[in-house]
């Protein structure tokens, strides 16, 4: 039942993005055609249940390509990232692994444009987060390490703000807010203060804000940190369902999470790439923890 709802929502979201891309090219405002399209989308989504997943896997690869070449970031004398070469393909679920201080969060901050690189190149769909942050952020949904959201806002108000800050407005904004509320099962807490919610719900709100504009690139930093096993399962179900439709960069030090959710993975140690490849291969060795300690793969 739960899985079916997720599948339905995902199919809805995929269709929405494709249609939106067409709408952006053909018209600047909202017209009767848009309403009709939305109606069709809703009708279509209602027909889809478990077949949504299958359709998603058949759909052409969506998402964006992320490429880093010789990427470095220093904080004074501290080297957070050094000469990183990495390619994350469209629609790929990519795990970024490593111990604390390995450089995972620094890489994510560089991709999101929160930080500027010290040297090297980084592109998201051909755009540099350093020089074209607006282009990158248009394609980006970011869920930070801890639920970094406003405790003194109500869930719905926060989602309205997050949508407005991402160029959603009017009925489009309201529809997007309702969509993510339904998608992340936030109906019962939509009117409550975020600060009063459990950590699990806060994480769901954090995920929901990243999905408002249905971005092709989703970056999730330690999504299940501090959650109980049930909440962890819920979040992982959501992320698993995204595979193929979005480029997903999952930053984690939980090996089982990486195995479960990602196709490829890279392990960082003290800012350097230790190994990179299909997740099962990277983590399939006798002692994957040795990689966390910076011991290169045999």
């Amino acid at each position, binding site marked *: 039942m739960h899985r079916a709802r997720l599948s339905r929502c995902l199919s809805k979201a995929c269709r929405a993005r494709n249609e939106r891309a067409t709408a952006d090219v053909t018209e600047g*405002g909202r017209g009767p055609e848009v309403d009709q399209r939305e109606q069709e989308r809703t009708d279509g989504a209602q027909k889809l249940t478990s077949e949504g997943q299958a359709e998603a896997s058949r759909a052409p690869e969506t998402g964006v390509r992320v490429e880093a070449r010789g990427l470095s970031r220093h904080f004074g004398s501290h080297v957070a990232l050094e000469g990183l070469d990495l390619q994350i393909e469209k629609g790929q679920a990519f795990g970024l692994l490593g111990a604390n201080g390995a450089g995972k969060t620094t890489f994510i901050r560089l991709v999101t444009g929160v930080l500027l690189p010290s040297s090297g190149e980084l592109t998201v769909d051909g755009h540099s987060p350093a020089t074209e942050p607006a282009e990158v952020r248009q394609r980006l949904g970011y869920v930070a390490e801890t639920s970094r959201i406003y405790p003194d806002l109500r869930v719905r108000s926060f989602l309205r703000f997050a949508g407005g800050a991402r160029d959603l407005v009017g009925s489009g904004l309201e529809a997007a807010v309702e969509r993510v509320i339904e998608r992340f099962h936030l109906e019962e807490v939509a009117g409550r203060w975020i600060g009063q919610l459990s950590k699990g719900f806060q994480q769901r709100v954090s995920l929901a804000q990243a999905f408002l504009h249905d971005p092709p690139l989703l970056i999730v930093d330690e999504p299940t940190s501090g959650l109980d096993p049930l909440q962890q399962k819920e979040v992982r179900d959501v992320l698993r369902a995204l595979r193929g439709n979005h480029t997903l960069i999952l930053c984690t030090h939980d090996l089982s999470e990486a195995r479960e959710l990602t196709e490829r993975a890279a392990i960082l140690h003290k800012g350097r790439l230790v190994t990179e490849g299909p997740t099962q291969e990277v983590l399939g060795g006798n002692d994957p923890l040795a990689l966390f300690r910076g011991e290169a793969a045999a």
Partner: protein
Amino acid sequence: MTRIGSFTRIGALMKKELAVLFGSPLAYLVLTLVVLVAGLIFFDHLRAYNQILFLFQSSTMGGFETDTIPDHVNLRDTVFFPVMENLGLTLIAVIPMITMRVFAEERSRGTDELLVTTRLSPNEIVLGKFAVTYFFVVIAMLASFVYPAMAILQGGVGLQHLLAVFTGLTLLALALASIGLVCSAWTSSQLIAVVASWAIGYVLWDWSWITPFLREAESVARFLDGISMHPRYSTFAEGIVNLANLAYFVGVSIVAYALARSALDWKRIAG
């Protein structure tokens, strides 16, 4: 979905800022404090004025030589000007309590990363936050201005004077708010932000006391006099709207805006 412009994004941010501001008791506490302190200052001076009047009248009835009230004992000079003076000093203490959290709280909570990963540009973020703070400051000034306005109207000062005084008071408050916002933008500690705002506010308040000691360094004296807020604010209090003084307060806000904006850029560079 419709593509919208910068104004709508700023609008979304302003709504959020207003919800956060008025969702916490701090805004109401500060408003109450401003009105209370303004009232206390006003009634204290009014009481002193009444005592002086009473003394003069008693003396007259008692047959002393003083049978007239001197010219300078009037509502304008005995109540209004001192009230405005003290109100200016009070603003230096009170306004940073509102501005301290605006940027610093985002940094300490880590929500600044959420902000900058939306489509809001750094300019839009700073503009939205400045606009909401200015809005709050104007509300606070309107609330606190009831007493000075009474003193002016009762003291026989005209509407033009009243407007000039209100303009001066508001510009001073906005300049202080801008300084507070800069301090907040450059730190993640609200305590540092508030103390730094107080320090800068009081340092910039009045350097005219030092000019007699700087006869041999006239340019320094002129500079210190030029950056002082108090002489410019006093001109407004006298009912004179001077373009140079207007430019000074607007200039403080523009410089503050640029510095706050550069704090966001600096964070991308320094981390």
